[in-house]
C-alpha cells in the first residue's frame, strides 16, 4: 500500500471533529470544526497564491520593461544620437557664424582707427588752423566721416546678427533636454530589469512613458533626418497656413 500523502493527512483531525459534530447534531461544534478546516486549507493556499501572483507580476514587469527597452534601444537611442549630432552641427554653425561676423567687424573698426589717427596727425601737423582749413584736410575729414557713418551701419547690422546667432542656445537646449529625459527613462527601465533579475519583488510594472514629457506635447525643434511628416517646412509654410485659415473663416 502506498503511504498516505501528507496533505490530506493534515486535515484528519478537522474532518474527524466535523464528523463527530455532524453525528452528534451539535451545530456550534460543527461550525467551529468547519471554520478550523477552512482556515487550515487557506493557510496552505495563500502562500501558493502569493507566489503565483508575484511570478505573474514580475513576468509582466519584465515583459513591460523589456518591451520598453526594445523600443528605447531600437528607436529612441538612435534618434537621440541624431539629435545630439544635430546639436553639434548647430553649435558648430553658430560658433562659425559668430566668428565670421566678428571677422567682418574687425576691418571696419581698424579702418575707423586708422583714418581718425591719420586725420588727427595731419591736423596737428598744421601749426596754423587757418592753413589746415584752407588745405585738403576738411575734404578728407568729410570723406572719413561719410565712410565711418556707413561702416557704423555695417557694424550695427553685424551686432544684430551676432545677437540672433545666439538663438542656437534655445534650440539646442530643447533638444538636449529631450535627450536627458530619454537617459532618465533608460536608467529607470534598466534599474527595474536589474531589480527583477536580482529577484526583488516588483510591485508595479514599468510605466510606458512617452519619450517626451507631457508639457512638451509637441515635437520640439526639427532635427535633420527626423523631420515629422506633419511639420511645416518654415515660416512661409506657416504664413500660407494662417492665411488659408483666415480665408476659411
Amino acid at each position, binding site marked *: 500500500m502506498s503511504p498516505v500523502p501528507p496533505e490530506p493527512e493534515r486535515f484528519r483531525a478537522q474532518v474527524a471533529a466535523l464528523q463527530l459534530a455532524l453525528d452528534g447534531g451539535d451545530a456550534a461544534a460543527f461550525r467551529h470544526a468547519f471554520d478550523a478546516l477552512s482556515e487550515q486549507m487557506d493557510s496552505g493556499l495563500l502562500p501558493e497564491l502569493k507566489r503565483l501572483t508575484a511570478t505573474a507580476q514580475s513576468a509582466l514587469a519584465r515583459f513591460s520593461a523589456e518591451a520598453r527597452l526594445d523600443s528605447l534601444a531600437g528607436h529612441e537611442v538612435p534618434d537621440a544620437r541624431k539629435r545630439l549630432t544635430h546639436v553639434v552641427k548647430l553649435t558648430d554653425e553658430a560658433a562659425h557664424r559668430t566668428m565670421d561676423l566678428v571677422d567682418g567687424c574687425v576691418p571696419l573698426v581698424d579702418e575707423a582707427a586708422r583714418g581718425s589717427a591719420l586725420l588727427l596727425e595731419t591736423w596737428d601737423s598744421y601749426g596754423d588752423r587757418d592753413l589746415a582749413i584752407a588745405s585738403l584736410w576738411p575734404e578728407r575729414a568729410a570723406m572719413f566721416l561719410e565712410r565711418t557713418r556707413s561702416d557704423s551701419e555695417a557694424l550695427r547690422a553685424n551686432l*544684430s546678427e551676432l*545677437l*540672433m546667432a*545666439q*538663438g*542656437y*542656445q*534655445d*534650440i539646442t*537646449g*530643447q533638444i538636449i533636454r529631450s535627450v536627458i529625459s530619454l537617459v532618465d527613462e533608460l536608467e529607470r527601465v534598466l534599474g527595474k530589469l536589474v531589480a527583477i533579475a536580482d529577484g526583488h519583488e516588483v510591485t508595479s510594472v514599468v510605466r510606458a512613458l512617452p519619450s517626451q514629457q507631457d*508639457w*512638451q*506635447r*509637441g*515635437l*520640439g*525643434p*526639427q532635427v535633420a533626418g527626423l523631420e*515629422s511628416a*506633419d*511639420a*511645416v517646412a*518654415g*515660416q512661409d509654410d*506657416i504664413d500660407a*497656413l*494662417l492665411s488659408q*485659415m483666415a480665408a476659411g473663416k
Partner: protein
Amino acid sequence: MSTVKFLVVDDFSTMRRIVKNLLQELGYNDITEADDGNTALPLLQAGSFDVLITDWNMPGMPGIDLLKAVRADAKLAKLPVLMLTAEAKREQIVEAVQAGASGYVIKPFTAVTLKEKLDKMLAARAAA
C-alpha cells in the same frame, strides 16, 4: 517714440534677451520678461500690456495654455498674442490659431520676420 508695453515669455533666458534686444532695436523699450505661463498670467492680469510674445514649450504652464487662459479672461481677450516657438507641427499651429493666436513665428527666426509680424499685429490692434 512708441510706448507699447511688451511681455516676453520664454523659459530660455538667452531667447528672452534676443527678443528684448530686437524689440529695443525696433524702438520698443517697455519690455517685461517671464519664464513660463504661471509667472506670466498674474503679470498680464495686473499690468496693462499691449502685446504678449510667448514660447510654446515651457515647464509649468506652456504657451498654448497661457494663450487659452488669456483668451478666457474678459480683460485680456483682445490682447495681441504672438507665438514664438520651435514647434513646427501643423496640428499645433492650427491649435494655436484656433485658440486665438494673433501670429505664429517659427524658431529659428529672423529680425525681419519678427518685425513684419509685430507690425501686422499692431496695425490690426490700431484698426480695431
